[in-house]
């Protein structure tokens, strides 16, 4: 459907992680809101490790804190307590600027609503993360061309997101997340707005990326989607279940 050629090699992480060090390590991570009625816990004493190359699904009922946890892992949310180690680096001791730099270097994010920039074409949406990483223009053009080719989007490179279907938009979003060769992909309900066949294609793509060496953590409600991964973490009311 996407013109994706299964035989091509996707982007793989360029540098091998330190051996034996989890890519993500949480110890007693908590997120709490202060309200007039008292403290409201969104996440409570979350503790787990994720090793490089895992494909983890975070599941749980609505309001369990899954998306919040993902946002913290992706360093988009800075207001939390506890310990968060990323490849042995203490994220909890970093300031916001350092976290953003770490995010930029290692993490790609895929959103349920795709979150492509409406006023940029497909190729421009792919170019943007590279330009934010100060990649030279000639190099960027080459990387973007490669990604368009590998994801079968060459014919659509000058189209705007509103001119694409939901599945095509999510494909572009995945390509954008991968284009800077992150070690970790975080996906928040990546197939939530897609119908089943499109969803299947995206999950197969994630599987392929994982086989290439990219660690994937997805938030999902779907049992079917969770079967693509090799591990499930369940959250309920902010707590890890079975912890």
């Amino acid at each position, binding site marked *: 459907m996407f013109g994706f050629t299964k035989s091509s090699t996707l982007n793989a992480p360029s540098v091998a992680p330190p051996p034996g060090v989890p890519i993500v390590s949480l110890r007693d991570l908590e997120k709490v809101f202060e309200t007039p009625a008292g403290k409201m816990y969104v996440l409570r004493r979350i503790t787990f490790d994720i090793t490089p190359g895992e494909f983890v699904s975070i599941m749980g009922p609505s309001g369990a804190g899954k*998306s*919040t946890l993902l*946002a913290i892992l*992706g360093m*988009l*949310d800075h207001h939390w307590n506890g310990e968060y180690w990323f490849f042995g680096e203490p994220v909890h001791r970093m300031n916001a*600027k350092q976290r*953003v730099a770490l*995010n*930029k270097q290692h993490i790609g*994010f895929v*959103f349920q*609503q795709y*979150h*492509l*920039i*409406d*006023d*940029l074409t497909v190729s421009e949406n792919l170019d*943007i*993360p590279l*330009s*934010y*990483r100060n990649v030279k*223009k000639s190099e960027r053009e080459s990387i973007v061309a490669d990604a368009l080719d590998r994801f079968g989007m060459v014919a659509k490179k000058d189209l705007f997101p509103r001119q694409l279907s939901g599945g095509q938009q999510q494909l572009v979003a995945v390509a*954008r*997340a991968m284009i*800077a060769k992150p070690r970790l992909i975080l996906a928040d309900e990546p197939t939530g707005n897609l119908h089943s066949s499109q969803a299947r294609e995206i999950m197969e793509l994630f599987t392929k990326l994982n086989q290439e060496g990219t660690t994937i953590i997805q938030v999902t409600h779907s049992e079917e989607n969770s079967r693509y991964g090799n591990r499930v973490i369940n959250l309920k009311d902010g707590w890890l279940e079975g912890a």
Partner: protein
Amino acid sequence: MMETLFKDLHYAVRQIAKNPAIAALVVGTLAIGIGANTALFTMADAIFTRPMPGLRQSERLVWVTPVSAAGGGGQRSLAYPDFQDYRGLRTVFEDVAAFSRLRLAVRAQGEPEQVLGQIVSANFFNVLGTRMALGRGFLPQEDSTLDAHPVTVLAHRFWQERFGGDSAILGTQIVVNGSPFTVVGVAEERFNGPSHSEPLALWVPMSMVNRAWPLNTGALTSRGTWWLESIGRLRADVSIAAANAGVATIAARIAQADTASHAGITARVREMRSGLRPNDMNDIVPVATLATIVTVLVLLIACANVSNVLLSQAVGRRREIAVRLSIGASRQRIVRQLLTESAVLALAATALGTLIAVWATELVSAQIPVPLGTSPDQRVLLFTLAAAAVTTLLFGLVPAFHATRGDVAHALKSAAVGRDTRRSRLQSGFVVAQVALSLVLLCTAGLFLSSLREATQVNVGFDASRRVLAMSFDLGMQGYTPQRADAFVRALGERARSLPGVERVAFTNVVPLGERNIITLPFIEHARADGGARFEERRDIETYLHTVTPGYFATLDLQLLGGRDFNANDVPGAQRVAIVSDQFARAAWGKSNPIGQRLTVGQEDGQVVTVVGVARDAMLAGPNERARSTLYFAQSQNPGASDLTLLVRVRGDAAPLAAPLREIFKTMDASMPITGVQTLAQYRWDRLSEDRLGSGMLSIFGAIALLLATVGVYAVIAFSVAQRTREIGVRVALGAVQRQVVGLFVREGMRLTTYGLVIGLALAVALAKLLSAIFMGVSPTDVAALGIVSGLLLSVSLVACWLPARRAARVDPMQALRAE
């Protein structure tokens, strides 16, 4: 870096094209602010910094001015012998020129007219570096022998207007003050003398002073006749300090030789940077300051308005910015991108603002009698670009920083945008600032308008209506001797009196409500202990001096409170008499009877006059002038006052008398130019023309500010309605009626307006206090003006709040809730 900039520019243009209406609003709003400031800068540049046209290497030109050694008092004029002494300072100056402005009667083709000219030393054009468009300047020998060289150089504009730019003008003769002068040259285009001035018509050499200024006494010989201005061209290696030392030495030598006129006088050189003379700053600075305050306020209001628009727009882009942040953009990068968008808008506004500035400058310049070089130049362009940069920062920085703050994760999650408290506070702050600043401008305009109204309606103390016609002429310019002048005045008076409808006729040397005034200091007689008398200078009684004929007071319906008017017995040789105003009498003699008191003017041992009458106080100099005492001398005992005005009082409208009076003049002396033929009502109207211009400009700016502030209030409330659609739906679903929904938003808007009003009133009163010290007639306690303006702002704001609030009341609750 360049590549990123191009990307940002490319994206900025795309964003702007997406919302053309918003872009047009932003560009238009900013263009007004930038245009106003650029226009002001252009005017200020033309007045304060640009060298006058026709001057070459003006950085080496300096004013040579006598000043009081004790300090204060400002620039004085120069006597001709003193000028010659300074000219001899060859170690300092390459050369020094002297000049003086004069009104001259000129007859070229057609009717005689009075023009403004300059009498100059022969080296005048050489010292200034002025070229001739035709012919030549003056030769050195044309300054050497008195009355021997009746030659003239015409101003380019005068040549074009009066002679059609005829290149055969050289060698022809024109009549100046009754004598033929040969035209030897036409000055280069736009040259109008070394300082800002009304348009000059011609120049004559100093040797012709007896023709140009017939009643002069010792103009070229007396050190006591101070009448010239002087400009020197410094030698290349001479500094200002060295020049000052040199002229001070000369001044000391002169003072030693002539203590009578020069005691306590030294000299100084001042750089000639523009067309402003050293004393001109006192008049210009207050107006320039006020103009600067006004235009800066308009720019600030415009920027606040645009910031609000951008803040509102930022809401719609919150998701986009959160995505950019989440995929690796730094905050700095996003701010730079947003500022680039602001800069594109600012540049577009600058281009439009420049057009507005050019148009506005031309409009204002046309109202000013002094020609100014206001064509845009490099400095103006640089200023405009700087204004664009400042404007970009002012209106773009806050929204840009605000857009990158906040919770990225939350922004990515939620599709619906609820109220952002921080943004709401910022927007409210901008609205309050706009309202406050607008009120300051409106109040300032209101106070000036009130002052103008006051000046228009105030009782000036005499009849300044259409019943009195004035007609001015200069017998001295025509070379009339005192006897001939006396005969002319008598004959003219009789013939004017014989015209139908004429009730009274009189003459004066200072036309009431005219531009010219003569101010002097009196020396009041006091008895000495030894029984003699001394005359004490009264510096506290700065007084106007008028020379008038009998019947003057009755002609103007200016009441005499005591004593008598001048009469036929007040002749040369008889006791010299004066009439004083009531204010003069009280200041000089308190409660004592002023009749019979004696005084002199100008100097202690001047001619003594005896007071024979007391006149009611009158605003003869104009309703906006400082109230000064007035002293009246009898014209018959002061024949030197030959620049006279005929005043004719009639039963009805005096204007129709202008034609018959002109005919009378023609038959009596066809070569004499007549000026200022208008009723005193017209004089009163003209006297306030500057005030009207100023008040008009302030009112325009005030109206613009009000419009911007109103749009700002409207926009904030409208945006608030859009943001709270769901809340409105819920309120209506819970039972709120239309009135309650409307009231919710009107209260919000009026609350902001009220805050702005309170702050604005405090600022306005403070500014008014400052202005009242500088501008006559402006009162900081003009409660009526402040009240009216505040009421206007409240009313307009109420409408601006009500319109969008009314829309809120029409929200369909089901639709509003479903959209969530």
